[in-house]
């Protein structure tokens, strides 16, 4: 999974609901369609929340992983 090359990285570690979900919209706006945003969070709720955000906004989570309490999401801009 980590062989995906991100065009931009966003660190949301230490933030709690709803902060982690409020950062990706701004970050993804700076990307072009098809580019990848890598987002890292420590909020366990971010797993479902990121999925909900992607579903509503049409962006796609192409990969995600969890290790040692850190959640990483690779989001492809629509």
């Amino acid at each position: 999974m980590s062989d995906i090359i991100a065009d931009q990285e966003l660190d949301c570690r230490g933030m709690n609901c709803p902060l982690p979900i409020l950062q990706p919209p701004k970050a993804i706006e700076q990307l072009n369609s098809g580019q990848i945003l890598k987002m890292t969070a420590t909020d366990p709720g971010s797993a479902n929340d990121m999925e909900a955000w992607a579903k509503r906004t049409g962006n796609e989570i192409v990969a995600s992983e969890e290790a040692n309490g850190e959640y990483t999401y690779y989001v492809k801009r629509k």
Partner: protein
Amino acid sequence: MSDTTKLVMIASRGTLDWAYPPFILGSTAAALDMEVEIFFTFYGLELLLKKPKLLVTPIGNPTMPMKMPFGPKWFQKINWPIPNLVTTNVPFFDNIATFLMKKTFKKHGVASIEELRDICIECGVKIIACQMTMDVFGYTKEDFIDGIEFGGAATMLEGAADSTINLFV
């Protein structure tokens, strides 16, 4: 990116704990490309003041946890059984409870009300202050933050008429 989903809320409460739902849901809905309107009325007007002085109280709120945000883990886990006799008679008890809750929020990475409110405004959430309760409570437009609108029941209902989610907080 626009969406036809529209969230309209009435925020009627002016305590620190109840200040969170309208701003959390408002900012999150905006992040989810939804259109958002929040109508602030009665004690909810306090949330729009330039410097809101929000408190939380255990009075009439028997399940509110009273825990310490410092010290060893076992100590932080204790839910202090403080009787009403104390919470109602100790001066500034609400200020102490508020201080502890704010500290706990911060420790858990939760944003402050002012931060969430700023994000809402930045994201284009439409904020309407209830003109009638402003008059009754003696507020003027200058007391409130910039970027908000003023209106009454009809303004709220007009916005709610084509909404898909409607909440009273």
